[in-house]
């Protein structure tokens, strides 16, 4: 069983979670051309390295963040979204 540690609920079967993709800067709706919007909506990055992703613990409907190694698929850490806001 693969485990993911939810910051609120603790270690759980990965089956209890849903991935919502990488954290990305949202384009400025007043200054973004169609081409950039299209890229933002329909293209995904495919790079090596560490990514910060949104995840949801489904039974509690709790959204949080996880740092994941895209090569090894190792979850490096998980944390509450408030920590991202503090860092910004």
């Amino acid at each position: 069983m693969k485990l993911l540690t939810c910051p609120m609920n603790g270690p759980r079967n990965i089956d209890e979670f849903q991935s919502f993709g990488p954290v990305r800067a949202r384009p400025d709706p007043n200054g973004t051309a169609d081409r950039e919007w299209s890229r933002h909506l329909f293209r995904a990055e495919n790079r090596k390295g560490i990514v910060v992703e949104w995840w949801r613990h489904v039974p509690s409907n709790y959204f949080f963040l996880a740092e994941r190694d895209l090569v090894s698929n190792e979850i490096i850490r998980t944390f509450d979204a408030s920590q991202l806001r503090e860092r910004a």
Partner: protein
Amino acid sequence: MTAGAATHIYPFVPGGAADGTKLISGAVVLSDLTGKPCFGLKGGGSAAWLAAQGVPLPAVNRIGDHRGMRVLRLGNEDILFLAENAGETLAQIKAAWLTAVAPKGYSSWREEGWAWMRLSGPRLVEAMSGLCALDLRPQKFGVDDIAQTRVGHIEAVAFRSPTGFDILFDITASAYFARAVAAVAGHQHRGHP
């Protein structure tokens, strides 16, 4: 019944969606508490409004007590009251909330949207180990702890009751849950681990 109030037809009562589904009894006992008084608040302002009413709120995923009600903190702004034996107190809280001005959170519709079932019986521990992947041994999961997890393959909230475990889940899965519990208990009765 209050004039004008709708009559609730819960799944296992005559005419309900799960009418006719057997609730297992014997080594594992499944009881339906869905019709017992409960009420939930969710969203911004819920915790502050309840605190202003003098309701002591436990930490997230912990259970507190307020005048005979069990107070389940499912999230910072997600609080559930279960009033198995304190319906009057719950009615007071609910009446105060209905007439209060915002911010006060919103009703999370727990009284109609969630099933509330109780598992007990001499083979309870074995049944729970077949229904839920979490370590629910007493030394790991205390009387005031809440597990928001999967039980019988559906999203559920599980916690201890004086006679076993109480499980809350989407009311539309009531018949499925009753059958899942019966299947696990039957499987173990036939000598499987």
